[in-house]
Each structure stands twice: as structure tokens, then as C-alpha cells.
């Protein structure tokens, strides 16, 4: 059975650069503070719609916020 890998992200750095709290970011993207916390520490992987909303809030593309290089490595492996 394939192991589910967690996608890394730059949300914490971007949030601090924009001087936002986790609660403020959560309100802006329509989720809870606990979810933002879990995403930042890599415990939970955001769904595509949520990832898009987060990236759009920072004015970036999804791949600029989330690091999919590990996912590409897994798919490339035989």
C-alpha cells in the first residue's frame, strides 16, 4: 500500500511576512485556526480548493506556496 506523503509548504513564513495571525489567515481563507496550524506543521495536507484559496490570499501560485517536489519524486519512482 502506497504511503501518503505530506506536502511541505511556506505558509508560516508567508503569514509572518504579511504580519498575519493564524486566526486571521483562517478567517480569510474560510477555515479554522487548528487547520492552519496542522497545515503549517505538515500534519495535514490541504485540499486543492483550500490550497488555492491560501495561495490566492498571498497573491501567489499554488506551487509557490506548496512544495510538490517530493510528490513528483514518489510518482517517478518505479
Amino acid at each position, binding site marked *: 500500500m502506497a504511503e501518503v506523503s505530506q506536502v511541505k509548504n511556506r505558509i508560516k513564513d508567508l503569514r509572518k511576512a504579511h504580519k498575519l495571525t493564524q486566526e486571521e489567515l483562517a*478567517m480569510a481563507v*474560510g477555515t479554522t485556526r487548528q*487547520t492552519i496550524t*496542522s497545515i503549517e506543521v505538515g500534519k495535514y495536507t490541504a485540499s486543492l480548493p483550500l490550497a488555492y484559496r491560501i495561495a490566492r490570499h498571498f497573491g501567489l501560485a499554488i506551487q509557490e506556496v506548496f512544495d510538490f517536489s517530493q510528490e513528483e519524486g514518489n510518482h517517478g519512482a518505479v
Partner: protein
Amino acid sequence: MEQFKKELDRRVKWGRAAAIIAAILSVLTTFVFKPTENAASDLVLGFVQGAAMGLALVAVGYMIQAMRVRRAANSQELMEKLYREEQDERQAFIRSKAGYPAMTIGAATLVCAGAVLAFFERTVSMAVMASGIFMIVYQLLVKLYYSRKY
């Protein structure tokens, strides 16, 4: 958001109905229903009556909470926060991992069936109720596990 307010109203109505049903069951099990010869002992019947009263209290508490939340509709900020918590994808993911709502309904059905069986056969009644309670405890533990994992 309007849909969410309607959902809260619906919960208040369901909570009210559940409280009334539980209260009726409490009265019936105490004063009306007579157990058969093979039925459970007074201890189990007392447990069933206590469970019915407990259900009534839980239903009333649920209804009061829903009514308080519904009154919070005056505060847009609070309503939005409640709405976000309700729609949170991580919580929905954890609930699905824990088997909500199918397992909850199954467990409740087993407990109710066990309560009815208490009037007929003691051993079967206790086994069925224990299964239902085990399912509820298991579900809570699984939910706790996934809450910490994700």
C-alpha cells in the same frame, strides 16, 4: 449562511423532539411496561430507565446549545466563525475517518435495541447494549487519535 441558520433551526427542532421522546420513554419504562419472566433484573431495568433520562438530558442540552447558537445569529462575526468550524475540511476528514455518522447511528441502534430486549431476555440485552457502548467508546478513541495525527 442562510442555509446554516436553517440547519440550526432544524437541530433545535430535532433536539426538542428527541427530548420529548426520551421523556415519554422514561415515563413508560417506569410506570407502564411490565417485564416478562425471563427479563432482566431490576438492575438492568433501572439502567434502561436511567439511560432514557440521560438521553432526555442530553437532548435538552443539545437543544439549548443550538438555540444559543441560533441567537448568536445577531453577531455576524460569531456566525461566520461557527460556520467555518462547521464546514472545516479537516474536521470533516477526521469525522469520516472515525466513521461518523454511520457508526454513531449503528451504536445508538444497538443501545436502543438492548434497552427493548431488557424486557425479554437479560443476557442478550446486556450483550447488545455492551456492543453499542463499545462502538461509541471505540469511535471516540479513533476520533481522538486522528485529531492528534492530523
